[in-house]
């Protein structure tokens, strides 16, 4: 029986006397592929940060793998790919290898020494993501797409059960984007990794996601993508044209093909 990986109940968040999130409730079961969509400033990133315990919600509660968020300690189970690096120092002297290895820290107890098994895991993921040839390059020297792959490698090297990605494909070219989604899809289907993907790219949601969450300070819609496209309520809410745009968004490179394969 699929178990609840994430439970968000009544979460609210204020910032400078304005509601950024209000009364957000949803749950994610293991094996789900959840897409979170919403306009800019809708609080999506804040929601993610709240789930990860990086900010404390002002109202409501969050449960991860059955444990309330403040008491949760098995961070090894969660892999995170942020929208952008906070202190992105373009000259940070870390090699690809060193940074990917960072992903294994969560699974270790202090003092987190490096073992041979770590090296093997890192090696495997480098090959898998196709970044083995650049393993000795500094992260600052890489292109956006390469950096994204390195960060993704870092997020998955520990074999997480839940993968959270915040707008991961904005800086990628279409081909890289396709590979990216193919990889996620693979993880989700074969390894049963739960995926939560925050994105503007509704086409990919339509193609891969099993669940679809539309957030605009509150949960506007929670269900499958198909349900969304057929819902009269959503038509009323968005207007036919907008709903049409979301549901039949074409990838510019693939004309004439839409809807789940």
């Amino acid at each position: 029986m699929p178990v609840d990986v994430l439970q968000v109940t009544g979460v609210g968040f204020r910032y400078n006397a304005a509601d950024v999130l209000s009364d957000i409730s949803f749950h994610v079961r293991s094996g789900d592929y959840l897409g979170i969509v919403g306009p800019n400033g809708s609080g999506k990133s804040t929601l993610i940060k709240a789930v990860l315990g990086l900010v404390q919600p002002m109202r409501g509660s969050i449960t991860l793998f059955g444990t309330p968020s403040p008491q949760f300690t098995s961070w090894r189970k969660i892999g995170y790919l942020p929208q952008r690096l906070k202190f992105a120092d373009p000259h940070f002297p870390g090699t690809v290898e060193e940074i990917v290895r960072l992903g294994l820290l969560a699974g270790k107890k202090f003092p987190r020494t490096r073992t041979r098994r770590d090296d093997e895991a890192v090696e495997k993921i480098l090959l898998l993501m196709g970044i083995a040839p650049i393993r000795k390059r500094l992260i600052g020297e890489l292109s956006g797409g390469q950096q994204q792959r390195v960060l993704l490698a870092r997020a998955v090297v520990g074999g997480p059960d839940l993968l959270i990605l915040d707008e991961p494909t904005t800086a990628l070219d279409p081909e890289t984007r396709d590979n990216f989604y193919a990889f996620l899809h693979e993880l989700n289907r074969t390894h049963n990794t739960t995926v939560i993907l925050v994105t503007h790219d509704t086409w990919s949601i339509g193609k891969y996601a099993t669940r679809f969450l539309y957030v605009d300070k509150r949960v506007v819609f929670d269900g499958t993508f198909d349900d969304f496209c057929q819902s009269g309520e959503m038509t009323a809410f968005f207007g036919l044209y907008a709903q049409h745009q979301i549901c039949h968004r074409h990838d510019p490179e693939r004309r004439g093909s839409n809807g789940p394969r």
Partner: protein
Amino acid sequence: MDLGELIRYGFMQRALIAGTLIATLCAILGVFLVLRRFSLIGDGLAHVAFGGVAVALLLRVEPAYTAVAAIPVVLLSSLGILKLTEKARIYGDAAIGIVSSFGIACGILLTSVAGGFNVDLFSFLFGNILSISRDELLIAAALFCIVVVTVVFFYNDLFAITFDEELAKSSGIRAGRINGVLVVLTALTVVLAMKLVGIMLISALLIVPAVTALQVARGFRTTILAAAGCAVFSVVAGIFFSFVMNLPAGGAIVMINILLFVVAYAFRKTQMRGRGALP
């Protein structure tokens, strides 16, 4: 006189040994500090030490021990700097400026209230690498052990935090605590090492070797090793150079550090021109 004869003097031996130890630990800390934009924390904390010493004198501490008495004040100030960056939403450099100004002002006001220092305070606060006593050499060795062991222990956490603090937190790393460890180590270094070799040298050794290593970095671990190497080289070469040219040792060491930086920078530029890659 030749160098061989020079080495037989006790003060030269101690200068070389203590200098090497202090250079190494400063360089290591410096890499983390520079990357986190806390470069001037050495300078800032030295100013705070001034205020801390004023407090100590007000409490009638013996002049020779005022440096030690200033340690708690400096430790607290370093944590205060950290708190400011977290809560008041300002960057490290401004936070350092605030705390440092506060320290100096307190020192000046308290001095005035106390009716003046009883001795020339700066001669007790600021040391000189050529006048390190045997006890001070032990202090340098102890400090070296504390810093190196702590950094080795916390290496992965420190690396994670320096790369991206939020990512580190999402891995369950207690960023606040690790940051605290870093600044507390720095505070300890500043107070103790300042008494040994003076503030100019400490400030320079915290910043320049790290920046030099960053010019030619090929990885985080190698950066740290390179910084330590530069620092040790500058100390040893600086001391000998100061002897040959009859110049103050501290100044010579700092100059050699700058020279190494220029060399590293030029090296990087020529390498890039050759490869045609982006800077």
